[in-house]
């Protein structure tokens, strides 16, 4: 591990602070009643930032072998994207038919 040569625990503290700050920003954005599209993009973007920070720093994924990182990231992200890509048009179609 090459995290913080002087203090190996610092990475956890700084990540914790960053996660809390991002969470407060997300709560603030939700409370401010921002335009829906902006809010969705903002919250989803920060959700992924938080996920990368947890996986990278807490789970030490950024210190793992690149093959492991690619296997994990592709396994989760691509499969979820395929699921969502199939479901989104279907749900929109059901919505349109029900409204009609």
């Amino acid at each position, binding site marked *: 591990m090459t995290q913080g040569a002087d203090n190996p625990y610092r990475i*956890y503290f700084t990540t914790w602070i960053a996660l809390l700050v991002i969470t407060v920003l997300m709560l603030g954005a939700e409370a401010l009643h921002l335009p829906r599209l902006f809010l969705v993009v903002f919250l989803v973007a920060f959700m992924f930032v938080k996920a990368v920070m947890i996986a990278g720093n807490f789970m030490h994924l950024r210190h793992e072998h690149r*093959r492991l990182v690619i296997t*994990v990231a592709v396994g989760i992200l691509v499969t979820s994207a395929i699921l969502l890509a199939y479901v989104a048009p279907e749900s929109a179609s059901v919505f349109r038919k029900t409204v009609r």
Partner: protein
Amino acid sequence: MSSHATSLEAHWGGGVSPFGATWQKTMMWIFIVTDALLFGGLLTGYAYLRMAGTVPWPKQSEVFSIPFIALMTFILITSSMTMGTAVTAARLGDSRKALRNLLFTIVGGAAFLGCQAYEWTHVIHQGARLTGALPGSELAALGVPVHFPASFFVLTGFHGSHVLSGLVILIITAIRSGLGRTPAQGVEMAGLYWHFVDLVWVFIFTLFYLL
């Protein structure tokens, strides 16, 4: 034999992992990927119900106390920090610090579960059932779609069951660690699972409670 085949054999032929990790860690990551896909499926199902439904989803702050959910998030993030500290302490051979932080993590996990039990009780009292809102209840008066309570119970229930099993793993790890029977890698494996539980909550918190 070609150089490619020789290289593959060197990696798979015994002893050396192509992922540069021990078999325990590799298996743990494979388990995490499969478990992540479970939640990926559940969240996709939730997205389907929400997008295909014609009854608008209620504003979350009308049903839940968002500051309370934020407190739960704070507890889980904090427990992830103490877990990370425990893993590094175990790796550095500081068993007392590792045990202390494991205990902090257990307290955090128990507090999160307590909060979740309180929240479930509150929502059930509002009239939420797995099959929809009870007629005449507070939740029915809000006009929530039938899938809203079901999505809530399934998503938070599956996550809560993971927190509970993580808590059991942490308690066993702490006891064995106190007795000097758990190597640093054992603490690391428990930590990976605990951080994964935190990771899933990031998605549920954003997609279900905020959006």
